[in-house]
Every structure is written in structure tokens, then in C-alpha cells.
């Protein structure tokens, strides 16, 4: 029964070999297609294997690697299989996209070797069955992605992004290292099975939770550890951004689930409060930041932060229920979270592919310079639109389903006895709703400003549709967004073994219900059928079209835009992304970003344009990171004097140390 784990490891091996091959082949023009093509094949196989392994019993093998006295454990259980499926699905989509997209890479030698290695690293993290293998793979994943972030290294911004990223990644790894140290105990039981059996005191378990939140949260992008994410994700080539945002953050979610739901043992109820607060704040802050961005890829990266918050809200709910032995409800919340993991992987990849296509076609990431792309990039814009609707949690697409499940879980929470949770759960529900609504605004802005309207620059006006592979990848993902949205029952049933393994309960089987309706608890309570909603909408819309076109008018005349009678040929008169965000910036920004607007209005008759300056502060940087940096700076500056002392002073140091130690002896 070790087929699954062996074949997954074989795929990992193949990916690593591809990486090595890429080093050798990078200088050939055809290498890009070859490597991405093969990566696509391998990840597809791995994805299929993982899906098949979902319902299979757990399998484990021990390789004579890693820590010598225990070897490297690799195992595939339901949770692993699910995340493997997500990772490899994302990998396959990105690889397919990159078959076309990768051809535009200026220095393929900086991308090709690391790309398959990065996917292999993510696979290994999920496969790892002991702390050493896990952390090794975890950091390997960070390193390879760091190398990919640094592939466009001549831009100083990217170098800074890579640095901040690697530093935060190391911080996270060290936190996880400490967490595993606690879980393993003094005897060094680093294998997950040993940790699972090892009972921790309440304090230590809470410490593990905190460390897991710091460690996994820094990789996933939990507020306020998210700062690296919007820097690093956009810096990488777009297909890598898609992987980092869509998949790597999920690997971090996996780490959190693995530690908190599996290894650490039974949770305390207040853990969920912490997770819910973090999740809620992350979701709202993430989307508010996203709303303020003008760089399309940065916007998407911040939106990833938001979605991680949503996932953590789901996980927090699951923890709350589990701590109160409400396993059915925990299963519902966990299913919602996991489904959102899958959904986000799909639509975030799609959106980054779209952003990559735009970047390719126009060379621009700044949405203030885009516009009108819907005319010249029809397929890309349609696919991006689907992704935008899906990520805004609107029916009938997939994002809605997972958020709906989470809402349903919130509604089950009045039975929870603890006061803290009674207050926190509805608040988290509000945060979730707020985040969803703001996400809608964010993507109206993102899509509307970049794809609709008139081109704001020559590059945007002359954009060309991208290659077939990219288009096929985007179209495929867009269809999947729809399919997951209208037929979520398949995904929910697929998740059942995963959830069963973690909270010892699962949602009722959905595929047996008529029309594949999603019924989380009972049909009298709540149900949702994306398929019917979709069919209804399609039906009514086509009815309306047919009706009007047959019975009324079907004539279309073209003319200049009316614009209240004062149309302007200048594309600068369009609403910009900055002005679009202004109302929301005024509502939320004055508190959250300390946003201030300063208008410089020239005197009447003065021909100069009026200027509006907006200043915003980035809270985590101001409150946490800059002070830390300043403290390190001050400490290094102060200590650095030690480099320039005279020998006599150095001798004094030695002498003082000696005296100190002798005094210790004298007193001891």
C-alpha cells in the first residue's frame, strides 16, 4: 500500500532531475518549452495520483536520508493527498501556462532550474512525515522560490523583496523549528507519529500554537507577518507568482493544519479566538490593502492575504467547534476552509496568469496605465473576469461556495458555551462579510480599470492577445472556477476523508442529494445549488435576450460616448484606480492606513493643474518592522565601534572577562 507515496516521491525525483537538466540545457532556446512541458506531465501525474490517494488508507515509507537514526519519513494520508493534489494541480496549470509564457523570459537560466525544484520542494513539504524532512523541504521551498523571486534581480525593488522574503521565511522556519522541538520533546521524537502520541501540557501546547501561527502564518501571509508577500509574489515571473500565491501559501496552511489539528492534540477553546482574530484581521486588512494598490500583481498578492484570512477564519471556527466536541460543525467549518484552499488555488492562479498575460502584452503592471484591454485581449479578459467574479465570492462561481459554507459554520456557533467565542464568532462572520464585499469592490476596480474603458497608454492600446498555451491554461482554469461553483458537491465529498481524519466527523454525503445540492446539515436549515442557480440565470438571461430581440429591437447603432454631453477625447479624463479607491480610502483608510489627502489648488486663472497628494502609512512596517530594523541598526552601529578599538582596549576586554570569571569562581 505504499504505491501512492512511492509514486509521489518518484514525481518529486523527476522534478528535481528536471531542475538539474535545466541547468545543463538553459542556454538552448527550446529548453523552456521542454522543461515546462515535462513539468506539466510530471505534475499532472502527481496530481492524478494524489486525487486517487484521497480515499486510500495512509501509506508511509522511510528512506535512509535525513537524520540518520530515524531516516526520512514520507507519508501520504488524506490530508497530504488533498494538498498534494492542490500543489500539483497548481503546478500543472502553471507549467502549461509557462510553456507559452516562459518563452518571453529574458534570462531563462535564472528561472528554469529553480522552477521544477520549487514544485518539488512544495511536494516534499506536504509529503514529509518527520520534522527534519518537513523543515528541510520547507526551507528548500523557500530557497527555490527566493531564487525565482531574484530572477529579475536587476531591479533593486526585487532584490529588496527577495531579501525581506528570505528573512521572513527564515523567521518562519525557526519558529516552526521551535514548535517541532516542543512537539518532539527532549528525547527527539521527530517523527510525526511520535509527536502525535506525545502529550504536551496545556502551556506547551499553547506555545506550539503560537509558534505554528508565527511559522506557518509568516509563510501564509497572516497579518502582520504578511509584509513580504506583496513584495515577493509580484517580483517573480507571473507563473511563479501564481504558484507562490496560489499554492505555496496553501502549503503553509497545510503546515498549520498538520501541527494544530493533527500533532498537538486536543485544542483549548481560546485557541480559536486567537485564530479567528488573526484570520478576520488578515482578511479585512488584506483586501483593504489590495484596494489601494495600483500594481496589478501587488493587488493580487494582497488579495492572497485576504483569502488566507478567510481560510484561517474557517480553521478558527473548526477549532472552536472541535474544542467543544461539536465534530459535525467542525467538519463543516474545516470543509469550508479546505474548499477555499482549493478554490483560491484555482482562481488566484488564473488571475496571476491574466496579470502575466497583460504584462507580456503591454509590459505594464501599473493599472493606471492600462485600460481597454478587453477589446484587444478578448480571451484573457474573459478569463480574468471569471477569476475576478469567483474571487469576489459571487455565485455561481466557486469562491462563493466556500464562503457560504463558512457562513453556515458561523451560524452553528450559538451552541458554543464560551463567552469569548460567543462574541468572537459573529464578529469574525462580520469580518468575513466585510472582506467579501470589499473584495468585490477591489476586483471591480482591478478588472474595470485595467481591462475596461479606454487605453491609458500606447502600450495598452497596442496590446496583442497572448499565445495559445497561456490562453488554454487560463480558459481551463476559468472553466474550473465555474465547474467548482456549480458542482461543489464533488469537491465536498472528495474532502470528506480529509476532514474525517482531522476532526473525526464529516459533512453528510452530498452527491446523494437530488441535483447535487449542497446541504451542510439539513435541507430545512440551508442548502445551495449552484447548478440550478446557474441554469436559472442562464435561462432567464437567454429568455430575455430572445424575447427582446424577437419582439422588440435588435438594432445597434454606434456613436461617440455621451458622457452627459461633454465627452472628452483625452483618456486621462477616465476614472482612475486611485480615484476609484477614494471613497473606500476615506471610509476605512483614515483609521487603518492613516491616509491623508492634501489638495494643492492653484489660484483662479492659474494654468497649473491641481494636485492631490495622498499619504498612507503601512501599519505593520511602522509599528513592527521599522522599529526592529532601527533597533538592529542602532545595535550594530553601537557594537561596530568594537571593530576600531586599539589593541589595548581589546586586551582590556580579555582582562575584564578574566577578572569576571575569577570573581565568579571566588563567589561560587
Amino acid at each position, binding site marked *: 500500500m505504499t504505491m501512492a507515496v512511492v509514486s509521489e516521491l518518484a514525481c518529486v525525483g523527476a522534478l528535481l532531475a528536471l531542475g538539474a537538466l535545466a541547468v545543463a540545457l538553459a542556454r538552448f532556446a527550446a529548453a523552456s518549452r521542454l522543461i515546462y512541458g515535462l513539468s506539466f506531465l510530471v505534475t499532472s501525474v502527481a496530481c492524478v495520483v494524489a486525487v486517487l490517494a484521497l480515499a486510500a488508507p495512509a501509506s508511509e515509507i522511510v528512506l535512509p536520508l535525513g537524520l540518520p537514526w530515524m531516516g526520512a519519513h514520507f507519508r501520504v494520508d488524506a490530508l497530504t493527498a488533498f494538498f498534494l493534489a492542490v500543489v500539483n494541480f497548481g503546478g500543472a496549470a502553471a507549467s502549461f501556462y509557462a510553456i507559452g509564457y516562459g518563452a518571453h523570459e529574458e534570462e531563462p537560466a535564472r528561472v528554469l532550474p529553480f522552477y521544477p525544484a520549487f514544485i518539488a520542494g512544495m511536494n516534499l513539504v506536504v509529503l514529509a512525515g518527520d520534522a527534519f524532512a518537513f523543515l528541510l523541504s520547507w526551507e528548500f521551498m523557500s530557497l527555490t522560490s527566493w531564487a525565482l523571486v531574484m530572477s529579475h534581480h536587476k531591479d533593486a525593488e526585487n532584490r529588496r523583496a527577495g531579501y525581506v522574503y528570505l528573512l521572513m521565511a527564515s523567521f518562519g522556519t525557526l519558529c516552526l523549528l521551535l514548535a517541532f522541538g516542543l512537539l518532539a520533546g527532549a528525547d527527539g521524537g521527530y517523527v510525526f507519529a511520535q509527536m502525535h502520541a506525545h502529550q504536551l501540557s496545556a502551556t506547551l501546547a499553547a506555545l506550539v500554537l503560537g509558534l505554528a501561527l508565527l511559522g506557518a502564518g509568516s509563510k501564509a501571509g497572516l497579518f502582520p507577518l504578511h509584509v513580504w508577500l506583496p513584495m515577493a509574489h509580484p517580483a517573480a515571473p507571473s507563473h511563479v507568482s501564481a504558484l507562490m500565491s496560489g499554492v505555496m501559501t496553501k502549503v503553509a496552511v497545510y503546515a498549520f493544519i498538520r501541527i494544530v489539528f493533527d500533532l498537538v492534540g486536543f485544542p483549548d477553546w481560546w485557541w480559536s479566538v486567537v485564530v479567528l482574530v488573526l484570520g478576520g484581521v488578515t482578511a479585512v486588512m488584506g483586501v483593504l490593502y489590495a484596494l489601494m494598490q495600483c500594481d496589478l500583481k501587488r493587488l493580487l498578492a494582497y488579495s492572497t492575504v485576504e483569502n488566507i484570512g478567510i481560510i484561517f477564519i474557517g480553521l478558527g471556527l473548526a477549532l472552536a467547534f472541535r474544542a467543544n466536541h461539536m465534530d459535525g460543525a467542525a467538519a463543516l467549518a474545516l470543509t469550508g476552509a479546505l474548499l477555499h484552499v482549493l478554490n483560491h488555488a484555482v482562481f488566484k492562479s488564473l488571475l496571476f496568469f491574466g496579470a502575466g498575460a497583460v504584462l507580456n502584452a503591454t509590459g505594464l503592471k501599473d493599472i493606471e496605465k492600462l485600460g*481597454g484591454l478587453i477589446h484587444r485581449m*478578448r480571451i484573457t479578459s474573459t478569463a480574468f473576469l471569471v477569476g475576478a467574479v469567483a474571487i*469576489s465570492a*459571487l*455565485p455561481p462561481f466557486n469562491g462563493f461556495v466556500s464562503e*457560504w459554507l463558512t*457562513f*453556515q459554520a458561523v*451560524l452553528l*456557533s*450559538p451552541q458554543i458555551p464560551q463567552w469569548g467565542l*460567543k*462574541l468572537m464568532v*459573529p*464578529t469574525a*462572520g*462580520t469580518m468575513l462579510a*466585510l472582506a467579501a*464585499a*470589499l473584495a*468585490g*469592490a477591489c*476586483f*471591480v*476596480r482591478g478588472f*474595470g480599470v485595467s481591462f*475596461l*474603458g*479606454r487605453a491609458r497608454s500606447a502600450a495598452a492600446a497596442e496590446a496583442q492577445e497572448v499565445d495559445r498555451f497561456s490562453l488554454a491554461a487560463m480558459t481551463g482554469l476559468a472553466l474550473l472556477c465555474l465547474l467548482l461553483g456549480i458542482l461543489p458537491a464533488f469537491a465536498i465529498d472528495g474532502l470528506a476523508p480529509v476532514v474525517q481524519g482531522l476532526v473525526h466527523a464529516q459533512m453528510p454525503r452530498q452527491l446523494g442529494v437530488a441535483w447535487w*445540492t449542497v446541504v451542510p446539515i439539513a435541507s*430545512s*436549515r*440551508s*442548502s*445551495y445549488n449552484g447548478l*440550478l*442557480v446557474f441554469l*436559472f*440565470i442562464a*435561462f*432567464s*438571461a437567454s429568455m430575455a435576450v430572445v424575447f*427582446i430581440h424577437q419582439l*422588440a*429591437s435588435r*438594432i*445597434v*447603432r*454606434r*456613436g*461617440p460616448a455621451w*458622457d*452627459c454631453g461633454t*465627452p472628452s477625447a483625452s483618456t486621462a479624463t*477616465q*476614472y482612475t484606480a486611485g480615484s*476609484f479607491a*477614494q*471613497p473606500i480610502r476615506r*471610509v476605512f483608510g483614515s483609521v487603518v492606513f492613516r491616509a491623508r489627502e492634501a489638495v494643492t489648488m492653484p489660484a483662479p486663472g492659474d494654468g497649473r493643474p491641481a494636485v492631490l497628494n495622498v499619504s498612507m502609512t503601512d501599519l505593520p512596517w511602522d509599528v513592527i518592522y521599522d522599529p526592529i530594523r532601527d533597533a538592529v541598526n542602532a545595535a550594530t552601529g553601537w557594537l561596530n565601534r568594537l571593530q576600531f578599538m586599539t589593541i589595548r582596549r581589546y586586551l582590556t576586554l580579555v582582562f575584564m572577562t578574566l577578572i569576571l570569571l575569577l570573581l565568579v569562581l571566588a563567589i561560587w
Partner: protein
Amino acid sequence: MVNLAGYLVQAGEMALVLALAPAVTGLTRKLKARLLRKKGPPLLQPYLNLIRLMRKDAVLADNASWLFRTAPYAIFAATWVAAALVPTFATGLMFSWSADLIAIIALLGSARFFLALAGLDIGTSFGGIGSSREMMIASLAEPAMIMIVFTLALIAGSTQLSTIAEVMLGGAVNLRVSLALAAVALILVAIAENGRIPIDNPATHLELTMVHEAMVLEYSGRHLAMIEFASSLKLLLYISLIACVFVPWGLAPMGSDLTAYAIGAGSYILKLCAGAALLAVFETMIAKMRVFRVPNFLGAALMLGLLGTLLLFVSGAL
């Protein structure tokens, strides 16, 4: 047999909302005009407008995209489907299980999403201003609405609108503080969502104050008709929603006889008239507020909704 009746009721429901929606809009306008001592347009003027618009040629801006042309139909369809899922004269609709209250709200959200995109499509400043404000309003109204849903769902133990209505109808629910809070919040949200005074003035074309009208400025002909129709439907939807939750009396339960359905339909029309009248009175009495005061208005709704939910969480009895 029951099945067939169910389909018939569902179809009737869909047809009914379609048929009544312009009338509600017309009634409101008429009443408002009367309250201002004006004569006002005829009650059926919205129907005539719609027919007129549908017959006219659609004039599209030169750079209008396919999205601009398809959005009206999508908006109309999403709103219609949402409206058709709200029990109007009978509960236990055939397809009510396909979407609960949360989904209905999300469907309206989809409609709004496309409307806002359409506002940006031509690339004029008015479209943008409308979209921007609309999304700002929505970003507060939607969470408030979700909170109201929470309150209702917690009282009724379900998010299915039919079930909620049945529970409310059953009389098991006493007057509750949280319910009252939810009712107030729902009315506030309804006003905001339908672009009524004091949030937006549906009758104005004064550039700086308009929200909804700014987004649809470039629309003409049948496309405009669809959008007008959709907004009428939305108004109807919200009145129906308030009616079926807070004044559910007269709703025909599932599988009742024709008399019950007739009573249901009759009471429904009465409720609509009352709703339209109240709206007209309210709008006449109040002045439109500045756009940047809207967040306070909606924030109040959000807080009321949250308060209602929290009260329920903290004490099941309130």
C-alpha cells in the same frame, strides 16, 4: 401532482414579480409626486417606459465592449432569479432550496458587480464615479445584510427564506429586541441598496450626487430597459423580503389550496402597496445626504445587525 403544482407556483411567482415590479416603482413615484402636491406620472408609466425603451435602437458608445452589451441581461437575470427565490405570496417554493438568503444576497452582489463594471466600460468619468460609489456603499451594505441574515437565521434556525418565513408565520417567535434591530437594519440596507433617498436620488441627474444613474448614463434602448427593469425588481425584492420576514401574515404554506394562494397574493399586493407608500413618505420627509456621510448611515446598519446577532449569541432569549 404536488410536483406539478410546485412548478406552477414557482413559475407563477417568477411571473408575478416580473409583472409587479414596474408597478411598485410607478406607485412609489406617483405617491411621492402626490405628496409633493404634484400630479405625477401615471401608475403604469414604468411599463410604458420599458416598452418604449425596448423598441428603440440601442446606441452604443464607439468603444463599448461585449461586456457592456451583455451586462444588462446578466444583471436582469441575476436580479430576477434572486427575486423569484423570495417567497411573495406562498412559502415552500419549488426551487427555494437552490439558494438560501445568503445566496440571494450574493446574487444581487453579482448583479451589482456587473453593473459597476459596465459603468467603467466606456471610460467616462461619470461611469467611474458611479461605480466607485456604488462599490463603497455595497462594501458596507453587504456585511450589514449578512448580519441581518445571521440574526434571522439564528432565530429561525435556518437560512432558507421559506423556512424563516414559516417560522415567523408560526407565531413561535415573540417580539424580540434583536429582531427589531434586524428590522431597522434591513430597512436601512434596503434604502441604500435601492439607491433611494437619502443615499441616492433615483430621480436626479445631477452629476455630483448620483450613484446608480451615473453608472447607467451610457445605456440606451433595450439595455437601459433591462437595467431599469432590474432595479425595479430589486426594489420589489427588498419589499417582499421585509414583508415575508417581518409581516409574513397571509403567506400560503406549501401545498395549500387555491383560496390560500389567492389570499396570499392579495395580501402580498397589499404589503407591496404599503411598502411603496411608506417608502414614498419616507423619501419625501428626508433630504439626500452627502456621499461621505453614507458610511455613517450604513455603519449604523452594520452595527445594528451585529448587535442583533451578538444579542442572540449572548442570550438566546433577546
